[in-house]
Structures are given as structure tokens and as C-alpha cells.
């Protein structure tokens, strides 16, 4: 029975005008987005190559003359990745890297606007930039599914019941021994299949366009993320098919169900995910500007100096003890305090983004966006991981210097001792190099799991609601 109902429904949906429009629009959009992405990616690769060459130059200088402070810094830059095409996730709003100064130790964010020669100057990354701006448009696959396909999902399903009621076929169907659940199941499965075809075509088009360009390396990791993204997209689109079906079971004519469906779509995809960003951005997440942070950093230095004022004064008479005290105690503590201030504000910014996400989980569109971002390894997940990699690299670099000096004392990165590099040269190949590592699929899925679980719950809730309502639907 289900088979017959399903077959008829699929033929009707696929022969329909909606499907053709859907097909053409999705393919066209994906091709256009692929071309935009390729152009951006080429620019990012050029930028990355310049910065990598600069880092190599600095490290070579450092290996030959470690005391030359002008070269004792490296820019740790995010590697351009194809996954940004799956989900851009406001990546361009996040700091694009860190400036790592070897001594005194400092890890300072670089924004996108950082000039490659402007080492050391803090470019403010404002709250409004850092926390997602309420943008509607983003040229990635997530946008295609989140906005376009979800809209088609609603359009496909809104008159599933009301349309047949108006046409008079519902009565004829139910004059037969047809289960109500089968009717809804057929409508649901057919709508999903009708959405899957353009989605798959879109993804294949994207992979082929990127592949034939030979600019973007299509690794197996990227392709497996694309497959996971497709599955995730089905889970998301299912929500909107069910919303369409639900509106169709609570109304008795197609006009009403269309209006209700469009209101629901507008609310869940546009208004709900965007409004907390606008409201909370300004009121609750008033993170200071870069300039204010630098003032805080300076104040932290002064506080440490004040703390040791008496001891420093007392030691002034003995120059050796005085310098040793500054090197061993005061300076490391100042560097530590300065770094703490910077890290503190960075953590606050990340916390602001994550808090905003918690507010937004009521929207399936937000859940999908966050899950897609986690699967792709972009956005806030990417930034957090990148920051951890940058810190590990910084610690590892200082550790390398200490080990090569033969010093076995416990240390923190801030307790750098200039003696470790005095009159020394390092073999360039032995010096640690930074190259961003991609997160493992397992880690990415772990990040995506809470959002996926909520999307599953959304689906289950709507499934129950739709079947319950249709079971009581007046089909006369």
C-alpha cells in the first residue's frame, strides 16, 4: 500500500513545476558560489604563500642570529581550506591568525586587516565583527540548504493534505483501506527524495567544479565531510518538510497552509537566528576594543611593577641581583600578566559567540548552521582549535630553545632566559615550523553532536505532531 502511494507521489512531485525550478536554481546557485569561492581561495592561497615565505625568512634569520629581536617573531596563519565552501561560518570575521613573538613571549591575534608587514601592532577585532553579524547571505553550501532548499521543502509540503482535500482526491483515497500514516509517510518520503536529488546534484556540481579547477585540493577528508554534510542537510530539510506537512494538517485550504508555512519558515530561518545576534551583540557582549585591551595590558604591567616596587628598590644597589630579579621574577610575571589579559578577552569573545549559540538553539536553521560549521571544521570551532595549536606551537618553540641549551629546570614560556640563545646558532631544519593541522573527523563530529541531537529531537517532535494531527484530520 505504502509502495503504491509513494510511487504515485514521487511521480507527481518529480513531474511538477516546483521540482524543475528547484533543480535549476540550486544547480545555478552552486555553480555561481563555486566560482566565487575559487576566486577567494586563490587570493587566500597567494596571501598564505607570502606569509609562509616571510615566516621562513624570519626563522632562517633566527637560526643564524637568535639575538636579533626583529626576526624573533612569526605569524601563525590559518591555512586556506576547501571546507570553507561547505560552511563559511563567519570565518572571515574571526582573527586570521596570531603573531608569535619568541621573546618576550607573546601570542597576539591578527585580524584579517593585518598587513603582512605590520608585525606587532594590535589590530582591533571588534565585538561586532567577532560575534556573527546578522548577515543573510553567505556564498557557501550551507546557505544553499539553509535558505533555498528549506524554502523548497516548505513549498513542496505545505499543500500535501490541503491540496488533496481541495482536489477531492483525499476522500477517494480514504474510501479505500489506506492507512492514514501511509499517506503522510508517502508525502514525507517523496518530498525528501524530491529534495535529495537537487541537493546531491548540487554537491556533485560543487565537487566537480572545485575538482576541475585544480586550485582546491579535493582530499578524501573533504569528500567525507561533504557526505556527512549531505546527511546533516537531510536531517535539517526534514524539519521543514514536516513543518509544511504540519501546517497542511492544521488547516483546510492551501492558502492558509501556505501563509502559515511561510510565516514559520520566515520565523525559524530568518527572524529567530538573526535577531538574538542583533539584540545581544550590543547589550551583553560589550567586549572592549583593541585599543582598550592594550590599555588593560599596560595596566597589568604596571600592577606587576608596583607589586615588586619595594624589592626592586632594595636590590638596586646590587646590580647583579637586581638584573637577576628582573629577569627571573618581574619580567616573566609582567609578560604572563600581559598575555593573561589578552587571552582573557579572547576567551570572553569566544564565550560570547557560544552564549549566542545557546540562545539560538530554538531555531533549526541555527542548529543546522552550527552543526555544518562543526562538520566542516570552520568558524568558532576552527578558531578555538587553531588557537590551541598556536599556543602549543609557542610552548613547543620555547621548550625547543631550552632543551637545546641543555637547561633542565622547570619553566613557563614566560621564564625565557636569554642565555638559552646567547652566542648560539640553530640548525634551520631542527627549528619547529608551524603548519595548521586539520581537526580529525571524530573531533568534528563530537562538536557537531549536540546540534545534531537537537535536530533529531526537532524531527521526532514534528513527526509525532504531524501523525497525531493527521490521524484526527477531517478528510471530508
Amino acid at each position, binding site marked *: 500500500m505504502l509502495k503504491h502511494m509513494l510511487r504515485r507521489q514521487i511521480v507527481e512531485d518529480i513531474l511538477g513545476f516546483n521540482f524543475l525550478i528547484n533543480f535549476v536554481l540550486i544547480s545555478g546557485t552552486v555553480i555561481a558560489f563555486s566560482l566565487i569561492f575559487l576566486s577567494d581561495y586563490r587570493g587566500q592561497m597567494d596571501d598564505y604563500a607570502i606569509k609562509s615565505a616571510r615566516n621562513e625568512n624570519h626563522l632562517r634569520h633566527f637560526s643564524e642570529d637568535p639575538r636579533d629581536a626583529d626576526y624573533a617573531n612569526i605569524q601563525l596563519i590559518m591555512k586556506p581550506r576547501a571546507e570553507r565552501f561547505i560552511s563559511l561560518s563567519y570565518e572571515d570575521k574571526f582573527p586570521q591568525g596570531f603573531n608569535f613573538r619568541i621573546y618576550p613571549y607573546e601570542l597576539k591575534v591578527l585580524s584579517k586587516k593585518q598587513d603582512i608587514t605590520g608585525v606587532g601592532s594590535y589590530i582591533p577585532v571588534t565585538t561586532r565583527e567577532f560575534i556573527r553579524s546578522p548577515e543573510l547571505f553567505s556564498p557557501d553550501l550551507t546557505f544553499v540548504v539553509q535558505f533555498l532548499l528549506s524554502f523548497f521543502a516548505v513549498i513542496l509540503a505545505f499543500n500535501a493534505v490541503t491540496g488533496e482535500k481541495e482536489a*477531492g482526491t483525499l*476522500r*477517494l483515497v480514504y*474510501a479505500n483501506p*489506506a492507512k492514514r500514516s501511509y499517506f503522510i509517510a508517502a508525502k514525507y518520503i517523496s518530498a525528501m527524495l524530491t529534495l535529495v536529488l537537487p541537493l546531491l546534484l548540487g554537491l556533485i556540481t560543487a565537487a566537480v567544479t572545485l575538482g576541475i579547477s585544480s586550485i582546491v585540493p579535493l582530499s578524501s577528508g573533504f569528500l567525507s565531510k561533504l557526505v556527512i554534510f549531505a546527511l546533516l542537510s537531510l536531517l535539517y530539510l526534514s524539519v521543514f518538510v514536516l513543518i509544511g506537512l504540519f501546517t497542511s494538517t492544521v488547516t483546510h485550504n492551501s492558502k492558509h497552509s501556505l501563509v502559515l508555512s511561510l510565516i514559520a519558515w520566515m520565523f525559524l530561518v530568518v527572524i529567530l537566528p538573526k535577531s538574538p545576534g542583533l539584540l545581544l551583540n550590543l547589550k551583553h557582549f560589550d567586549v572592549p576594543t583593541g585599543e582598550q585591551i592594550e590599555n588593560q595590558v599596560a595596566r597589568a604591567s604596571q600592577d606587576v611593577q608596583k607589586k615588586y616596587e619595594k624589592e626592586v628598590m632594595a636590590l638596586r644597589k646590587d646590580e647583579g641581583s637586581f638584573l637577576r630579579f628582573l629577569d627571573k621574577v618581574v619580567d616573566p610575571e609582567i609578560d604572563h600578566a600581559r598575555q593573561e589579559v589578552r587571552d582573557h578577552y579572547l576567551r570572553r569573545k569566544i564565550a560570547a559567540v557560544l552564549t549566542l549559540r545557546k540562545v539560538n538553539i530554538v531555531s533549526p536553521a541555527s542548529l543546522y548552521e552550527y552543526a555544518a560549521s562543526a562538520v566542516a571544521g570552520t568558524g568558532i570551532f576552527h578558531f578555538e582549535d587553531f588557537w590551541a595549536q598556536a599556543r602549543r606551537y609557542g610552548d613547543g618553540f620555547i621548550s625547543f630553545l631550552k632543551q637545546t641549551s641543555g637547561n633542565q629546570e622547570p619553566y613557563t614560556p614566560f621564564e625565557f632566559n636569554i642565555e638559552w640563545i646567547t652566542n648560539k646558532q640553530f640548525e634551520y631544519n631542527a627549528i619547529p615550523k608551524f603548519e595548521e593541522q586539520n581537526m580529525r573527523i571524530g573531533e568534528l563530529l563530537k562538536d557537531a553532536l549536540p546540534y545534531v541531537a537537537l535536530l533529531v529531537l526537532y524531527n521526532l517532535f514534528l513527526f509525532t505532531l504531524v501523525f497525531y494531527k493527521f490521524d484526527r484530520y477531517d478528510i*471530508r
Partner: protein
Amino acid sequence: MEYQPSILKADDLSKRYEDGVLAVDHLNLNIYPGEVYCLLGANGAGKTTTINLFLNFIPPTTGTCFINGIDVNKDPLEAKKYVAFVSENVMLYGNFTARQNLDFFAKLGGKTDLAKNDYYQVMRRVSLQEKAFDQRVKNFSKGMRQKLGISIAIIKDAPAILLDEPTSGLDPKAAAEFLEIMAELKKEGKAILMSTHDIFRAKDIGDRVGIMKEGRLVMERTRQELQYEELNKIYLNYMNSEPSAF
């Protein structure tokens, strides 16, 4: 004469809608194999509600409907295996051809082993033009759709057929053809319940005729009884009187 149980049975059937309207009031009805029962009545008399109750489109407030001895409310899926339905305005899937519609509804009715020729044969039987067999239904006239509707009922081969004002809006020729098919189905032993406004056709085709008023069956006559009475006068008489228990 061998006793035959009724195929369609309404047992003390009542339906009161949520707005308080009593659409069917303690209706008792038995329709036997090879019998055509015509239900007459004005708009809102309860004819369509009775059919809706038999098809389990709505639950009864009290009483029971039986199709082939099966309680419709308790086991609607089983009961609906034994009934076919033709509505006042047969609406089908417009993007599908006549044969595809027939195929779909035949399968819904449980006929899964039919060949293309079986469909053509049924469509010929109801005098649907050959060229229309593989045409999309959206361009069909009402008469053609009604013919296809009766084809669907025929191909299901159910012992009971419910017809809700099937000749309404048909031209006289189409209506006459429709009733000829009814007569054939009756001969095949089908139990037919037909709601209609058409007093003259009811008299022609009906083995029994009932008149409903405000949900109650206020009169019932057999074909033999109607030979000596004028149904139109009886009908008008009942329409102008207060309803009373039958």
C-alpha cells in the same frame, strides 16, 4: 428463499456535529446484495453524512455502521475492502492519465494483479472514449470523470457501492448511461446505496427509496409500493411536514 445478510447496515446510527447540529438521527438501514437503495432528501438532510459515516470519514455519535458484517468504526481498514465509493464530483489526479488513475486506485483497493487490458476493458464498459484512456485527467469533462469514477468502483469489485449524488450535474445522456451501469452492477449482486436529489431516477433504479429529513429517515417505500404512489408527491409532502419518527 435463501436468507442473505445485509451488506450495508446502519444500526441506530446518529451523528451530532461539534456545533450541535444533529445530522443523522437514529438511522436504521439494511441494504442487501443485488439491491439499490436510493436516499432522497433536501440539502442538509443527512444523506452525505450517512455515506461519510459508512466510509469512516467521521465517527458516529451513537450507533454502528456495518459493511459486510464488519463494524466500520472498529475495523475501518477491513470494512473498506468491501466498499467502493463514487462522489458527486469525482476528482482524480489531474497529471495522471485515466489508466494511471485507475491503476492507482485499483491497487489502493487491493487489486494488485491487473494488466493494462483489464483497465481498458473496464473503461470500455463505462463507455469512456478509447482516446481518453491514456490522456491526462485534468482535461476531462465532468461526465468523463464520473465514468472513470465508476470504473474505479467497478474494478475494485467490492460487494457494496456508495454513491453520493453521482448524476448531479451530468447531462441527461450521461446520467442515463450512468444508471444503466448501476443496473448492471445491481444484477451482479452489488448492494448499492445512492444519495440523490433526482426523484424520477430514484424511482427508476431504486429497489427501495428512503426520504431523509433533518437527519431522520421519514419514509421508506419499495419499488412495488411506489407502483401505486407518486414519489414526487410523497417527497414534497414530507418536505413540507414536520419530521416524525419512522
